[in-house]
Every structure is written in structure tokens, then in C-alpha cells.
């Protein structure tokens, strides 16, 4: 009996693992930064060049850091979701404008709308590297102590917002 059942059991276990593997997203590389303080940065604002924006200016509040660029196609896909979130006023969204020309970025916001409280201009992408950015868009949830609590790679879908990001934001706000 055992000698006939054993191959079946092995097959079922392997099929289970492989099926689970199919449902994983290979682009979703777990970030080692989750649970660690968000890297420090100090960049000029996109709209007001002479004004600086830094991580510490947001200490004490829960906020989202959304990495975007005018050349990024999937950013357009998530843009309506961000616009709606901004209108709801549930959580402030700050932009990290990644490797982008200032004029192009400002025009893009004019055309599609600006969901950001403000955007930092990361022209050479150095701050992006500190945050482990490899594919735009990416979104970070940062808590009151300046610690990264969640990273979302790729466009934010209404579902991801509703099921993951917003519940976490509410919990962090306390």
C-alpha cells in the first residue's frame, strides 16, 4: 500500500509548492528596509527649487513616499488611485521625483493632476538608490518615528490600497 501511495504523496506536495510558486510575483523583492528607519535625504522641492525637503520634516506623522517620474508609464496607471487618495485626505502623499527633468515633471503634474503635498527632486537618483528603488513606481509607508513599515513595488492598485496600505496607515495613526 505504502509503495503505491508514496509517489502520490510526493507528487501532491511538489505540486503544492509549484502552485504556490506560480502565484508569487518575481518582481516583488522583499525590501530589507522594512522595519528600519527611512534613509535620510535632503533634496530641493520640485516646484520651489530653493526650498529643501527632508525625511525629518515629516517626523510625527504617518505619510506615504511615492517614487514617480514623468517618463514612467505605469505611473499613469496608478495616478488616478493616488489622486483619489489625496482627495480623501486620509494620508499625505509625498513624491520622490526620480531621475527626471524638472520641467517635464512639472508639466506632467499639470496635465494629470498633482496628488502630492510636495515632491522632492531626485535628479541623479541617489536618494532612490538609498531607498532601494529599482522599478518606478514604488510606494513606502512611513510611520511617525520615520520607520518604513511597508513597501509596495509597482503601481498601487485600488485593491492593494484598500486591503493593505490603508488598514496599515489607520493602525499606525493609532
Amino acid at each position, binding site marked *: 500500500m505504502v509503495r503505491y501511495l508514496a509517489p502520490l504523496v510526493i507528487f501532491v506536495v511538489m505540486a503544492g509548492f509549484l502552485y504556490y510558486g506560480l502565484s508569487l510575483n518575481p518582481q516583488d523583492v522583499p525590501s530589507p528596509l522594512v522595519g528600519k528607519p527611512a534613509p535620510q535625504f535632503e533634496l530641493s522641492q520640485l516646484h520651489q527649487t530653493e526650498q529643501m525637503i527632508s525625511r525629518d520634516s515629516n517626523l510625527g506623522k504617518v505619510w506615504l513616499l511615492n517614487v514617480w517620474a514623468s517618463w514612467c508609464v505605469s505611473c499613469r496607471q496608478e495616478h488616478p488611485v493616488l489622486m483619489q487618495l489625496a482627495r480623501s485626505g486620509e494620508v499625505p502623499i509625498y513624491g520622490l521625483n526620480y531621475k527626471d527633468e524638472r520641467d517635464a515633471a512639472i508639466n506632467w503634474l499639470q496635465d494629470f493632476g498633482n496628488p502630492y503635498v510636495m515632491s522632492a527632486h531626485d535628479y541623479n537618483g541617489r536618494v532612490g538608490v*538609498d531607498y*532601494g528603488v529599482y*522599478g518606478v513606481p514604488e510606494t513606502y509607508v512611513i510611520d511617525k518615528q520615520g520607520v518604513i513599515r511597508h513597501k509596495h513595488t509597482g503601481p498601487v492598485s485600488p485593491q492593494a490600497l484598500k486591503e493593505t496600505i490603508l488598514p496599515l496607515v489607520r493602525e499606525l495613526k493609532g
Partner: protein
Amino acid sequence: MKKILVLALLCLSLPLAYQAQAKEAEYIGGEPEIHARVMGVSEELRCLVCQGQSLADSNSDFAVDMRGQIQEMMETGMNDREVVDFMVQRYGDYVRYRPPFNATTFLLWFGPFILLGVGIAVLYTNVLRRRKQIEEVPLTEEEHRRAAELLEEGSGENKA
């Protein structure tokens, strides 16, 4: 024989030639010495956008940027180890092509050997069990006679 040897050598040298060419194509300026180190470290790091390739193999924007960044860091005097650590801090162990040995990668490193051990153990117990099942039955008088007859017959034929 000589021809085969030459052919084999040529086949072996093919990947070398390919590698040399691949590296040459990506020279992005700077001291040759630093460039060599940049390429060395890039081979150890994964291009996160094109995950099957190393930073050295890929010409995606991400890989080109990263090589530029690595070169800059080396020019400021960081050694190879520090550069790799810098990347791992930001992108995680996944960025390394050669995974480090730790609790989560234990199975990755030792899984094949464990499987080999299990296979040998199963084989050994099976052979042992079979050996016990084989019982030696002594031949009867009749069978001895018959065997001797057959042998006789065989040797006769051989002579003929």
C-alpha cells in the same frame, strides 16, 4: 586524434572569447584598474530589473546606472566588500548572485547533499533487506548428478 583535441580546445575557448567581448562592450570610462574592479563586483550582483542577469551582463538602464554608482563609490576609495555591503543593505541578500550562507539559505546549500544522503540510505536498506530474503538451499543428490552431467556435456562440445 589531433583534430579532435584541437576541436575540443576550440569549443572550450569559445565561452572565454564571448566573455571577453561582453566585458569590452561596456567600458564606461575611468581608470582601467577601477573599471576591472567595477566589472568584478558587477558580476556578483543581480540586476533587479532583468533578474536572470548580473549587473555586468545587462545593459538595462538600471544596470548601467548601478555600474556608474559602483564606479563612483570605488573612486571615493570604497573597497569591493564595502560596495557589496552597500547594495545588500538597500536591496537585500537577493541582490547577491552567490547567496550568503545563513539560516534561510541552509536548504539551498545543503539540500542536494541531504537528498543524496537520503537516497543512499534508502538504497542501502533496500539492498540489506533483499540480502536477507535470499536463502541458500543446498542441492539434492539428484541435482548434483544432473549438474555434473550438464558440465560434462558442455566440455565435450567445446573440444569438438
